[in-house]
């Protein structure tokens, strides 16, 4: 393809806002995929959608060494699904790890025959007993109101229709941004911006930039994408918990402290060293995130695909995760982007450099 017709550079916040506000609940990623496609197409040599809906952009290496690195950033977001129509209201179940406590009074979009604005209704405090006021609502006490009569509702909405949170993204003070689905649209921004940086750089490895589906319900897209791609290395891009009141330094990573590089059995120690070296060589601040077992990210699925794939994980710290009020430091996005691009350019031509037994 011709690389002289790149679209004008998009600043990270504008891109994040567009991706954050586009719906894409796990299993219904068409719209977010279309949105990502538009941004990715000019940055890769080939773009395709697979059986489950993963979007894979292939960017060939310059003087290719034949090695393949798979980058995985999931595009799906948590949401809700209609389980029953009840007297003009909707009952629902969560899709992924929804924080029920953050649901009451949220505005939502019901993706019925057409998109319907709605909200999560609950009984007002005046009619609750003192004991009930003490406790958060359970799912059985919450319902969705789209304002339609029971008959009109049955015309437009059916069991199984997906529901996404409706929340616009905004810039906060001190270079921070807020919105819904920053898990994991933040990493999709990192992936796209890194591909843009790499247009001007020389990398030997073939890049398979995979924007995965259904991560929030069990890393399902990454499993099949990793099988299809059969990469030599995998790098997952996701978000992690940022420090905030109630989340200590032991449980969370500093906000604005740069990308968190994963450390633990899910992550390949030699590949991890390459990331750390890239960060130190190019003076990118980073932190270490200790993950004692399942990282809960696409890295977990990639690692055991086929006969095994060395994997790494770059995470951007996000506050209030899995609520519609996630926040992120924009400079962490920018630093993660540079770390990813620098790492890819530094990947060794010879895979033996990644051997675990270097004396052997």
């Amino acid at each position, binding site marked *: 393809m011709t690389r002289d017709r790149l679209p004008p550079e998009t600043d990270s916040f504008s891109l994040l806002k567009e991706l954050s506000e586009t719906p894409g609940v*796990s*299993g*219904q990623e068409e719209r977010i995929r279309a949105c990502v496609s538009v941004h990715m197409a000019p940055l890769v040599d080939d773009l395709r959608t*697979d*059986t*489950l809906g993963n979007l894979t952009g292939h960017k060939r290496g310059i003087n290719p060494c034949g090695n393949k690195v798979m980058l995985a950033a999931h595009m799906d977001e948590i949401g809700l*699904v*209609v*389980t*029953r*129509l*009840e007297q003009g209201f909707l*009952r629902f*179940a969560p*899709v992924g790890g929804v924080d029920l406590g953050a649901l009451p009074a949220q505005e939502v979009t019901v993706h019925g025959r057409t998109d319907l604005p709605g909200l999560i209704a609950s009984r007002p405090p005046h009619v609750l007993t003192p004991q009930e006021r003490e406790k958060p609502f359970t799912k*059985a006490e919450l319902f969705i109101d789209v304002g339609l009569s029971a008959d009109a509702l049955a015309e437009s909405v*059916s*069991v*199984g229709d997906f529901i996404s949170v409706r929340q616009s993204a905004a810039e906060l003070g001190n270079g921070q941004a807020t919105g819904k689905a920053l898990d994991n649209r933040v990493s999709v921004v990192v992936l796209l911006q890194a591909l843009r940086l790499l247009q001007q750089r020389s990398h030997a490895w073939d890049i398979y930039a995979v924007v995965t589906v*259904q991560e929030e*319900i*069990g890393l*399902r897209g990454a*499993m*099949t*994408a990793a*099988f*299809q791609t059969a990469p030599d290395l995998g790098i997952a891009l996701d978000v992690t918990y940022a420090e905030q009141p109630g989340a200590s330094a032991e449980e969370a990573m500093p906000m604005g402290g740069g990308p968190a590089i994963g450390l633990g059995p899910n992550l390949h120690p030699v590949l991890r060293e390459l990331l750390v070296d890239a960060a130190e060589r190019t003076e990118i601040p980073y932190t270490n995130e200790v993950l004692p077992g399942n990282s809960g990210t696409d890295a977990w699925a990639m690692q055991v695909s086929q006969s095994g794939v060395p994997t790494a994980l770059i995470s951007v710290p996000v506050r209030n995760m899995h609520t519609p009020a996630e926040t992120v430091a924009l400079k962490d996005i920018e630093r993660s982007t540079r770390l990813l691009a620098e790492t890819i350019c530094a990947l060794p031509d010879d895979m033996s450099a990644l051997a675990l037994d270097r004396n052997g």
Partner: protein
Amino acid sequence: MRALIEELCGVFGPSGEEALMRELIGQHLAGLVDEIRTDRLGNLIAVRRPTAGNVEGKRIMLAAHMDEIGVMVTHVDAQGFCRFTTIGGVLTNTLIGSRVQFANGVEGAFGMEGSPLSRERPTPQKLFMDVGANSREDAAVQIGDTAVFRSGFGAVGDRLFAANLDDRIGCAVLIQTLRELESSPHEILAVFTVQEEVGTRGASTAGYGLEPEVVVAIDVTATGDFPEATPMEVALGKGPAIKIMDRRMIVHPKVRGWLENAAKANDIPYQLEVLEFGTTDASAVQVSRAGVPAGTVSIPCRYIHTPSQVADLDDARQAVSLLAHALGEEFA
């Protein structure tokens, strides 16, 4: 078809010991398929080659699991009482008062330590099994022996009662579908799977080995039609349920559409299902290799994973009709 369900429900087959089920189903499939074989894990694979060539056919895997939940003896004490572990999702609350049967015909009843009047919640540590023995030497069972829940097969009109409708009713639907399906443009891979109840393990390897282009599981699903049930639209007697989502899988929109179109075009009643717990063999095959479009036709069933499950025969008949019509049509 009622007789077939009853026959299948009477066969011993906890996860990992599906040989008797495999043998019986093999007999029923004689003459219905072009090829039949058993794979390394014990899945029974029956192949029906395409017979109608006017539209493009796919390799379609249909999966119904042969195994059922049960218990396994872990220790026999000096008095002949057995301690046990569970095979699959056994609900501990349902154990007291239920009966199990071992492969050799030995019966088992459950007791709990302490006063029978105590209102304590049963935990696996406090429960034991009485197998009619007076001592360890006298016991006709030993460590590693397995037993399945058994209660008499019953029927009230079309409502069927049995301990293991999950998934014997699904196996019956799959056999009956092969009986009723006259011609199909598709290569049909009818797989009676093993070890579903311990993590869809048979389907994982069958899916990998067969590389189907579409997979549809046939299994039971929960209902929302009894007092204080989890809000859920599915009810007994309103037709098979076409799954949209369960705990592990979101159905491919094309599979859902194909099944819904077949139901609508042939006036087959159906329901849409969102299940908040549990999954089926389809979820394992969905992520096999580079991914397979997956769906499930569910038979609504009350009190799943208890020793008294209730389903409706007409839902099973309509499920057969739905599958036979869908398989006769193009997958588009």
